[in-house]
């Protein structure tokens, strides 16, 4: 069996305490929730923290709540330590943001979802065929830019790591302008999920290493809102119906007028580069239009032209590129699916 490197396991009772432990031990410490990402990575010696700060059991990090806002809307607040299974099964999530429930339900396998958390999914390390391997394998390779080496075996040029952002839930959260509440030594701050990620495969997050994600906050429009409700869609490409990380994930959201014409449309794609990518210039194709087959085709085709998958996965990038429009269209189809009418 692969062995974990030795570490001290801390069980803080409050977020404050957790943050202090992280600050105290600096780069030697990492937060751990479900451990489904970190533990294998530690076994592969991608991370060797000597202090693990367990955040899963902190009471303040749980709960999925819906609270009324002053402007007539609602805020869906999901504690970062809520498991992916509970997000997938939450009535509030399924009702107000079904694409998020769908994305959570598509992550890994049932056991992983019972352990892994929504906060952990937002912190998922980027992945690459040359990186997520054992120490022996990486040594035989000669290591790589992201860890212990100086060469990127994907691009073979440049000094930029292109390991793939491979989390399923962030793109959904980005399309609905969700925010995360972070807590660090300097206190709390909130950040749009859209701004959480940066295009650097080595560390692709704006989260500082001594910060913890407290909650995910999603604004749900109220019934009186002029723009109408938000609809969401999600589609994932993978080879097996369980376990696999996305080869490609597309999340979309839209608001329609009463006649079914698009008022707002947003799309994110991930599984390609180091951060989710916004699908741009969609409004000019769709605004004021119903989502007819022609419009869907045009949107999908435009999405396809914006994406260039790399060989950071073991699966053929040319096929993955060809799949961008296909998966985009399938995500868009969610927006008009009858099941969504509620």
């Amino acid at each position, binding site marked *: 069996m692969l062995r974990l490197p030795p570490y001290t396991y801390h069980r803080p009772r409050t977020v404050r305490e957790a943050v202090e432990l992280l600050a105290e031990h600096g780069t030697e410490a990492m937060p751990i929730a479900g451990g489904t990402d970190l533990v294998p990575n530690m076994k592969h010696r991608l991370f060797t923290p000597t202090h693990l700060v367990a955040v899963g059991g902190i009471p303040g990090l749980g709960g999925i709540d819906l609270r009324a806002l002053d402007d007539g809307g609602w805020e869906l607040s999901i504690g970062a330590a809520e498991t992916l299974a509970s997000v997938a099964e939450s009535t509030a999530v399924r009702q107000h943001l079904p694409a998020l429930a769908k994305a959570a339900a598509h992550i890994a*396998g049932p056991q992983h979802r019972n352990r892994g958390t929504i906060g952990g999914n937002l912190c998922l390390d980027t992945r690459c065929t040359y990186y997520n391997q054992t120490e022996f394998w990486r040594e035989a390779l000669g290591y790589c830019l992201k860890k212990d080496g100086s060469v990127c075996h994907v691009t073979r040029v440049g000094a930029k790591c292109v390991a793939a952002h491979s989390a399923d839930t962030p793109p959904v959260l980005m399309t609905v302008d969700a925010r995360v509440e972070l807590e660090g030594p300097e206190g709390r701050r909130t950040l749009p999920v859209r701004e959480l990620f940066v295009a650097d495969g080595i560390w692709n997050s704006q989260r500082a290493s001594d910060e913890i994600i407290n909650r995910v906050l999603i604004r749900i429009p109220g019934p009186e809102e002029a723009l109408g409700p938000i609809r969401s869609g999600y589609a994932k490409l993978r080879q097996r119906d369980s376990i696999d990380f996305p080869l490609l994930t597309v999340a979309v959201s839209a608001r329609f007028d009463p006649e079914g014409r698009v008022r707002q449309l947003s799309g994110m794609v991930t599984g390609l580069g180091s951060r989710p990518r916004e699908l741009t210039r969609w409004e000019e194709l769709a605004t004021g239009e119903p989502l007819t087959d022609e419009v869907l085709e045009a949107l999908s085709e435009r999405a396809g032209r914006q994406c260039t998958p790399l060989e950071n996965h*073991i699966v053929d990038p040319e*096929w993955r590129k060809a799949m961008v429009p*296909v998966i985009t269209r399938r995500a868009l189809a969610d927006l008009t699916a009858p099941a969504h009418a509620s």
Partner: protein
Amino acid sequence: MAEKAQSDFTIVGTRQRKVDGLAKAMGRARYTDDIALPDMLHGKILRSPHPHARILSIDTSAAEALEGVHAVVTGREMAVPYGVIPWTPDEYPLCVDRVRYIGDGVAAVAAIDEDTANEALRRIRVEYEELPPVFDPFEALESKGGDDAPYLHEPRKPGWNGNITKVVKLEFGDLEEGFRGSDVIVEHDFLFEGTTHAPIEPHCAIGLWEADPPGRHEGVAFSEGSGGPGDTEAILRRSRGMEPKDQSDRGDLDGEGQLPPPAGQLTVWSSTQVPHYLHRELSRVLGLDPARVRVIQPPVGGAFGGKSEPFDLEFCVGLLAMKAGRPVKILYTREEVFYSHRGRHPFHMKYRVGATRDGRLTAVDAHTVLDGGAYASFGLVTTYYSGQLLTAPYQMPAYRFDSTRVYTNKPACGPKRGHGSVQPRFAFEVQLDRIAHELRIDPIELRRRNFMGSDTRTVNELRVTSNGFLECLDAVEEASGWRERFRTLPFGRGLGVAGSTYISGTNYPIYPNDMPQSAVQIQIDRSGRVAVFSGASEIGQGTDSMVAYLAAEELGVPLEYVRVMAGDTDFTPVDLGAYSSRVTFMLGNACLEAARKLKAKVREAVADHWECPAGQVLLAGGWALHAPDTGRKMPIREAFVLAESRFGTLGAVGSYNTPKDVHGDYRGGTIGASPAYSFTAHVAEVDVDVETGQVRVDRIWVAHDCGRALNPVLVEGQMEGSAYMGFGEAIMEEQVYKDADHGRAGLHNAPSLLDYRIPTSLDTPELTSLIVESIDPEGPYGAKEAGEGPLHPAIPAIANAIFDAVGVRIDRLPFSPPRVWRALEDARAGGELAKPAAPNDIRTKSEL
């Protein structure tokens, strides 16, 4: 040997639990890694980071100096070449002077815990001189040797290519005449990418050395300061001088003076499927008296052929335990399981097949290059099997095959479920589908027309007895709604059919001898208990259960009275192992022989008591009964008391050896020979996503002629498991390696169960098992194999179903989404993406 009708059976043929099922389901089974001995150390193996290199030096001093390290071994201490096939001994437990793939074992350590052992590995300094590697089998074939492209192994004769393990060319019938008389000839290239077994239990072994007290034996006994357990030099001296005299090709080390073997007893627990071969090789390589080596095989968590030869860890735990004087355990990491491999060979195949206008086969010509990886393993047999096992269930007037196995700098390939014949079956059954399509004949009908019949010989002279292949075809045709649905499902959905055959054990053991292939010993006593000592290897397939059913059936006891003790070379008779689907047929017959000897005694004793002829005494269901008047009966326990009183302690042995007149007498004619053959037909139903290339296999109907289903539950389990495994190989599995443009050539592409994708339960088709019973004249109660045969047609049936769905042929495995998508795109561009034309004559059964 089928002496009863089904109605006479009380256990055989009924749905029974596995005797070990509850223990496994409830977590009570103790696998090798569950065993912890007092003072046990943990071992680890240092592996080569290079695909091909000379070992210039190994410095283990820093590892030995580390606190907590108790022993370190290198290849030179076990420099006895071995190989599971005695004609091709081309590997060492640890590499001696050369490494041949990334992951090849170089040194091993034993320490107080795994972390210390890993740290010790980091402190071993190996100086390598890298050599040019070769990964492509065709390049390896063309190599001329020399410094620029050194052969992987020394040529066996001067002027030969040292990259070739084996060439087999055999021809039967008149090929030219066959093709001349053909109305249709198809010829295509196929590639079956290699796959691995992926057993859920990684390989694990524990060594225990119990040294004799000083002076007990004439051999050098262990004592402090003169070769005690910790005296590395003494063991090293011994082990270097331990080569048996009959080993002519014993590598390149100079032998030193022959020293007597160390005196003591070695016990190795291992998750092996061949305890007997392991026993032999441990004794030979470590230079120990075989009478003082014991191999124990605890329950095995899956093997599939991947544990059917000795592995480095088994020798290492032995020698490390001898050196450390403490037991040593080694458990492979999942990554090491991928490197040890011995999985299905990549086959590069060209199949030329001819037929007459009415669909009768005229000639088959096959050319195959087997990419063997770094060592021979079972490769000699694989090379023969690649051709020898294709000749049933269809009649072929003329057949030629030309197969060459080559070495490449990758983990060695070997046997995986359906050894050597799954790959050619894929190519051949697709060619049959092509011929059927070209002739507009229903592919099931085409297979019927070529059926060879029972009690016959194949073109390569293999004797075939019972043959239920037609019934298999009927069963899948009926169950799948074939006649209404083939070629008529909507575009994107399709049905495909394929057939196959497989052996019920190989007629000859892998080392020549005249001893039985399989044996059991049974003891019964006054308690009613039946103890079966079985040499066979329970690897989850149900061999312990199988002998329990047979013993209970013959001796008339309830199943719960039978205890099966298996997998321990110290107290079970020799069985050659769980491979080539040999166990039910061979062990079953051995068990019947032993049980019947005891049964005769029990009946005689009861008959005396009742003063009736012994032939009137029945033993069944926990009773001895008087046949003419079954109201007259006694509990079986009393019957055993009568027998024990009359004959003394009751024990009997039974054994099985194969008939020797079942094959041709040409060179290689014995390979592929089996006392009986199983037959299978599949129909697969697929749904092709024409946008993504993803193929969903919705259903597979599996009909299998197993002779007789001794327990239908286990037969269905084997049929489902086989179809599942074949489905996985068809759709997603591939053991492949990086190339120079992708990181590093020869590096395993994905040595983990995350990236080496085996199907999850959500991906798995609905599997329908349809048992066909042909009642074999020589099988135990008529039984034949069921563990490997049912895998074969899965792959070509899926390939043929894809063609039915979208009109596209893909001759390269796996049918992964990118590959299928490309094929679809090509067909779309060529305007060929459409439902293929229907045959002219989908015939109903009554018309045949």
